[in-house]
């Protein structure tokens, strides 16, 4: 029995080492497969139908009065921010549209195409001043229908 023990121990150690090596190679392979898949997925171009999305946002006044900010000023500020960040081409592609704005509560709804969601969120963060008042625009929710966006907007007021 004692003669066999060293052999058993050596076999156990070898099997543990091989288990460790196979596990680490599997992890490395998994990462490689993920990278290749991502690369192939990116190369395969798909024509995606743009879908309408509605972003409910809230204008928070840091200084000045919120009631002094009109719909036209909000629209202008969003357009200016969009052109500054993404240029005329980006603005033309994105066409963010102010669907609704409540001047008393500072809550609005912006319509856009779903492909530009991140761009819209980014450009809203650039809006820091509207009509002379220092503001910050807080995104509340994004929905697929105008009706649901209105529901969320009225709830936020």
């Amino acid at each position, binding site marked *: 029995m004692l003669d066999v023990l060293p052999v058993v121990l050596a076999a156990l150690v070898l099997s543990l080492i091989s288990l460790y090596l196979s596990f680490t190679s599997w992890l490395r392979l998994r*990462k490689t497969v*993920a*990278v290749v898949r*991502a690369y192939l997925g990116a190369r395969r171009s798909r024509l995606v139908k743009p879908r309408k999305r509605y972003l409910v946002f809230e204008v*928070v006044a*840091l200084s000045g009065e919120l009631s002094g900010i009109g719909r036209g000023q909000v629209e202008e500020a969003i357009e200016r921010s969009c052109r*500054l*960040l993404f240029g005329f081409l980006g603005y033309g592609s994105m066409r963010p549209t102010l669907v609704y704005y409540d001047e008393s509560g500072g809550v609005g709804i912006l319509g856009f195409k779903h492909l530009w*969601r*991140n*761009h*819209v*969120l*980014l450009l*809203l*963060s*650039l809006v*820091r001043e509207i009509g002379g008042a*220092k503001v*910050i625009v*807080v*995104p509340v929710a994004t929905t697929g229908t105008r009706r649901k966006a209105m529901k969320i907007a009225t709830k936020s007021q």
Partner: protein
Amino acid sequence: MVADLCFRGVVDGSTARHAYRLGYRVVASGKVDSVRDLENVRVVPRYEISRDAVDRYRSARGLKVLVVSSREDLKFYPKLSGSVSGIRIDFTQLTGVDKDFMRRVIGSRIPVEVEFAEVLRRVLSGEPIDYYYLLLRLYVRGKVEVYVCSGASDISSMVHPTAMRALISVLGVPEDLAAKAVLKVPRELVSGIA
């Protein structure tokens, strides 16, 4: 729990209320020296340290960020693990980002900080952001960990977490990884402190 790991201004009551409104529950600021609660927001100290000061801040409780302005700052990078929470690369002072430097950044296994305000400032002033693209590419490939912070200096420059996520998504990072960089990685970094 959403955390902003880089607030450069003074955190007072109104700032904390505003941060809470934006969704932040933890804010790391360089203007405080102890952990405190303010208007339901936990404020933790943030120390920006040079390579020489790493040992001095070893026992400090807070977020320790190593400012890398030359490749020598990442010398003996295995020793940095556990001593600093994050790395902030000062690309304006760094001369020459080459393979050796990136190998050190990857090998240190310390999350790299991407500051929203700094990236946006560069974009709007027409300055190159190639190094940020490089960092984010490495992040997507799983080579480095990245976290995004606001870099705000006052209330008016604070941004919603979705805007930070949107920025790196626009720069090419997939949505799930962008969310991880804004939400999960900062949360893990402050979990031991806050």
